[in-house]
């Protein structure tokens, strides 16, 4: 019963990641974890399911509510779908609730209408882009094998023309670890991005056999992150936010990291497929045992309070034995659940990277403190 109480608490709002079109996408990126699935068949969440979800979710939680709209390529659901989303959110809004919508898109379908809509309804837009044309077009191709780079740049420019500055998500593979300087320079000085994040490609379950040699290893990731930190410091722009650097920095300074892959709150999310299947995260759809339930046939509260989710919460929160003596334990929380080796309770594959980069950034910040005359009053780890 106590678990039911914590779920319904106004402070424990779970954040939904809604895959409105399943795997349906107009691109066929080589590293996509849906690459081996059918990405061509059009699928869109039904209006009935959308309304059931929003009605039950907004009844369940109070306070600040975030919705993350995902795919596949979510814009393939069409503008009327998202107009219905905001209409339903308005209809079911309760006193004291605030709503924030975020959408992750490849930006190739953005036009004036979409940009107007995002601006009018204050959508946060994240764009998937891997760097310079050479990096981006290595894997982010359309179904005919053609480039998507120019379309993405066009989409970003359209968003900016409408007053939206998108965040960027860069995917790091073995291929683009060799172009770290070029890609940083592209984002910071050519595209003019002010915030971006880096998703490391690591196919822990070896699903995409054709891409196994593109999974990055600890050595590559350490080298990449050290280079990014150095370039971020050299760029010296207080407005540039690189998600990974801020996460590591938060850990070094004893602050709470912003990302679930660092702050141990993976269980604060759930992901829903276009057909109502609910999983813990869109990165964990390949774990059938982690299916929490199906909204088509069950109430959302039953799914989120069900045994599969409660077991997941327990598993994901379990401390790995290797973490016990680690000085960075509370800054890392054994990393991303989807990149743990063997099982959900397994060791985070990039554990060694985490230790190395926490140490690297810690040393860097100590150097700054030493160079700074009065410099003992910002807190840097030992």
């Amino acid at each position, binding site marked *: 019963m106590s678990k039911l109480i914590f779920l319904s*608490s*106004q*402070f*424990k709002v779970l*954040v939904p*990641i809604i895959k409105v079109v399943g795997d349906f996408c107009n691109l066929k990126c080589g590293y996509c*974890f849906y690459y081996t699935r059918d990405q061509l068949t059009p699928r869109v969440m039904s209006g009935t399911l959308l309304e059931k979800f929003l009605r039950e979710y907004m009844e369940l939680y*109070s*306070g*600040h509510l*975030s919705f*993350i*709209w*995902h*795919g596949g390529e979510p814009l393939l659901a069409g503008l009327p779908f998202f107009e219905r989303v905001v209409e339903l959110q308005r209809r079911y809004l309760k006193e004291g609730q*605030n709503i*924030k919508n*975020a959408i*992750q898109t490849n930006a190739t379908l953005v036009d004036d209408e979409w940009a107007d809509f995002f601006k009018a309804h204050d959508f*946060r837009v*994240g764009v*998937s882009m891997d760097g310079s044309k050479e990096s981006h077009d290595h894997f982010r191709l359309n179904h005919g094998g053609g480039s998507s780079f120019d379309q993405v740049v066009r989409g970003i420019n359209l968003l900016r023309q409408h007053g939206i500055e998108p*965040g960027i*998500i860069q*995917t790091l593979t073995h291929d683009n670890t060799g172009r770290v300087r070029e890609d940083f320079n592209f984002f910071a000085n050519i595209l003019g991005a002010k915030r971006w*994040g880096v*998703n490391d*490609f690591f196919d822990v379950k070896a699903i995409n056999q054709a891409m196994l040699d593109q999974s990055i290893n600890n050595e590559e990731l350490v080298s990449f992150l050290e280079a990014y930190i150095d370039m*971020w*410091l*050299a*760029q*010296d*722009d*207080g*407005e*540039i*936010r690189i*998600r990974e650097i*801020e996460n590591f*920095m*938060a850990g070094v*300074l*004893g*602050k*709470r990291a*912003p*990302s679930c892959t660092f*702050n141990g709150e993976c269980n*604060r999310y759930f992901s829903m497929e276009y057909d109502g299947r609910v999983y813990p*995260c*869109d990165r964990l759809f390949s774990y059938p045992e982690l299916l929490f339930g199906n909204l088509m046939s069950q109430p959302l509260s039953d799914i989120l309070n069900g045994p599969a989710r409660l077991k997941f919460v327990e598993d994901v929160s379990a401390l790995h034995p290797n973490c016990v003596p680690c000085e960075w334990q509370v800054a890392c929380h054994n990393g991303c659940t989807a990149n743990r080796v063997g099982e959900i309770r397994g060791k985070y594959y990039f554990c060694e990277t985490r230790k190395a980069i926490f140490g690297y950034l810690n040393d860097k*910040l100590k150097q*700054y403190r030493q*160079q*700074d005359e009065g410099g003992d*009053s*910002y*807190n840097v*780890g030992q």
Partner: protein
Amino acid sequence: MKEVIVTMSDNSVRRTEYGLAEESIKRLERSAITGSRAIAGALTRMSTVSNRSQEDQSALSLDAWQQWSDWDNGHADS
């Protein structure tokens, strides 16, 4: 010197977190050392977010909440 977060009253925890950060940020912004402004920017952003669990993010001001979670849409890109 590692910042230690202990169980105290909310006010004392917040004073510890934010007071030191503000002082650091001001000095870093004035510094001529390359990289200082980048660090100051990061510290400024961290200073607006509670150091405590996301469980109490709902208790944040609307502005702080808006800033806090606008990166969370990068989940499924790879």
